């Protein structure tokens, strides 16, 4: 099952204006792992994610997805393997109806119409959005949009799910629903998030990015226990690990 591995070696990315977004990033994520990439604003999280499905090309360094190095030739296969869910669902949903949006990927894979219909039905049921099939995406609520955005990616049967800030902008109930959904996935999962409580719930491993380098990489609870590290990287403990704010215990 080596095709679910994501290996990043000495990745560096310099934008055209000279901004060094990533200096030297290396890590390997194994099959079925659920990993959070956290860091302050501007730490390089989004830049890193955009490399994972080949939207940005490394200035130096190498990325391997499964058995393939990420090159122009392997790009189509890698884009199917790595399902990317954007922070703003409005950027991801661009077709007139939910059905057309979810079917967009499978059609591009060249699947026959009947197979596409079945897939769309299955994934919409999986994310609890079957009733939205014929609705236009812009009429959905934030939580519904997010679930449909996830369905658009699931319909391509990816092995690796990459999500940028999955819980941002969701109300507590929609957030809870989404976390429940993501927990059930068996895919290799990579998240970036400022929702550190979600990270505690979903990810066994956390990578901390700071100014374009990997500051720490280890078990989530261990990382959130290291207050000096968190402070240095402009982070703080998740609320669930901070104790009760009313009675002050655990502070």
């Amino acid at each position, binding site marked *: 099952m080596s095709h679910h591995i994501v290996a990043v070696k000495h990745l560096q990315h310099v934008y055209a204006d000279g901004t060094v977004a990533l200096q030297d990033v290396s890590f390997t994520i194994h099959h079925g792992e659920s990993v959070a990439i956290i860091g302050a604003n501007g730490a390089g999280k989004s830049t890193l994610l955009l490399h994972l499905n080949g939207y940005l090309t490394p200035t130096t360094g190498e990325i391997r997805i499964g058995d393939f190095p990420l090159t122009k030739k392997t790009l189509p296969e890698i884009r199917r393997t790595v399902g990317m869910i954007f922070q703003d669902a409005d950027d991801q949903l661009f077709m007139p109806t939910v059905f057309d949006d979810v079917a967009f990927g499978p059609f591009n894979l060249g699947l026959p*119409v009947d197979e596409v219909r079945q897939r769309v039905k299955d994934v919409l049921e999986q994310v609890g959005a079957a009733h939205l099939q014929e609705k236009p995406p812009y009429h959905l609520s934030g939580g519904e949009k997010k679930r449909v955005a996830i369905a658009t990616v699931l319909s391509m049967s990816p092995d690796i799910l990459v999500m940028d800030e999955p819980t941002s902008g969701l109300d507590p109930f929609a957030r809870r629903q989404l976390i429940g959904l993501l927990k059930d996935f068996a895919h290799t999962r990579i998240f970036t998030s400022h929702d550190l409580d979600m990270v505690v719930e979903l990810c066994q491993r956390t990578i901390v990015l700071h100014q374009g380098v990997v500051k720490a990489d280890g078990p989530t609870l261990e990382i959130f226990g290291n207050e000096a590290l968190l402070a240095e990287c402009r982070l703080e403990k998740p609320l669930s690990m901070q104790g009760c704010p009313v009675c002050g215990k655990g502070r």
Partner: protein
Amino acid sequence: MRRKSKRFLTPPFSLLPADSLLLTPYSLTMRSIDGAVLDLKRLDLLATGDSLIHRLDARAKVLTTLVFIISVVSFDRYEFTALFPFFLYPVIVTSLGNLPGGYIVRKISLVIPFAFVVGMLNPLFDREVLVRLGPLAVSGGWISCASIIIRAVLTVGAAVILVGVTGFLAVCQALERLGTPRTFTVQLLFLYRYIFVLTEEGARAARARELRACGRKGLGLASFGPLIGHLLIRTWLRAERIHMAMLARGFTGEFHSRQISAFGWRELFYVAGWSALFVALRLENGAQWLGGLFAGFLS
């Protein structure tokens, strides 16, 4: 100083009940932009309907529309009465396709001012009297101006109805299957998508400006320059993110549709039937013929 104290007469938004906020004049423009976008999206949604006309292969509908438009625009500039029987086509297709008539009429009425601008100088330059209705002398200029408006209504109506019963995506696919180069059809599709991106971003920018202009003109025209510049950059970035999302889902320059359709006998009858009618109405003045028939019946 006086200006400043006057400004305080406008209550801050937090003091206004939610309803009155919606009804304030400065929110009208942004609502109209938002509304226009939603209205346009509705046209796309109509195409998901299921009717006799919807089920036809898109190529048949595109071809019929082409024959219709060519027949209408090929008339002589002073032709007026012979155009009216052509309204039969939009009316029949609208009713068979279960399209909301009022909505279609509203969409078409948007082009009338533009058509009028095109034809409004005709009455000034062409004053030769062509028709006398009792004491009223109608010059060639007025007739050609009216003819332009009728033609605009007919052709734009046919195009709006085509998108309403087919969907823009399917129209582009049909054009491609009829031999239009793919580069052209994909450009057309992106252009269409870009309208939504641009208007959505535009509505956001207009909202931000109007809410801070407090019912006045803001900084007037001066504030529009940077606003439009920003709008271009933001739309550009947004379009790039959408393109990224498309690439991430394997987009290779081809749009697919769930409608499987073939050009069968039904389609052939549809195109041949309408085309025959259009050509007949083009060669013979249908209105006059009908009038003659009616007069003959009376006498």
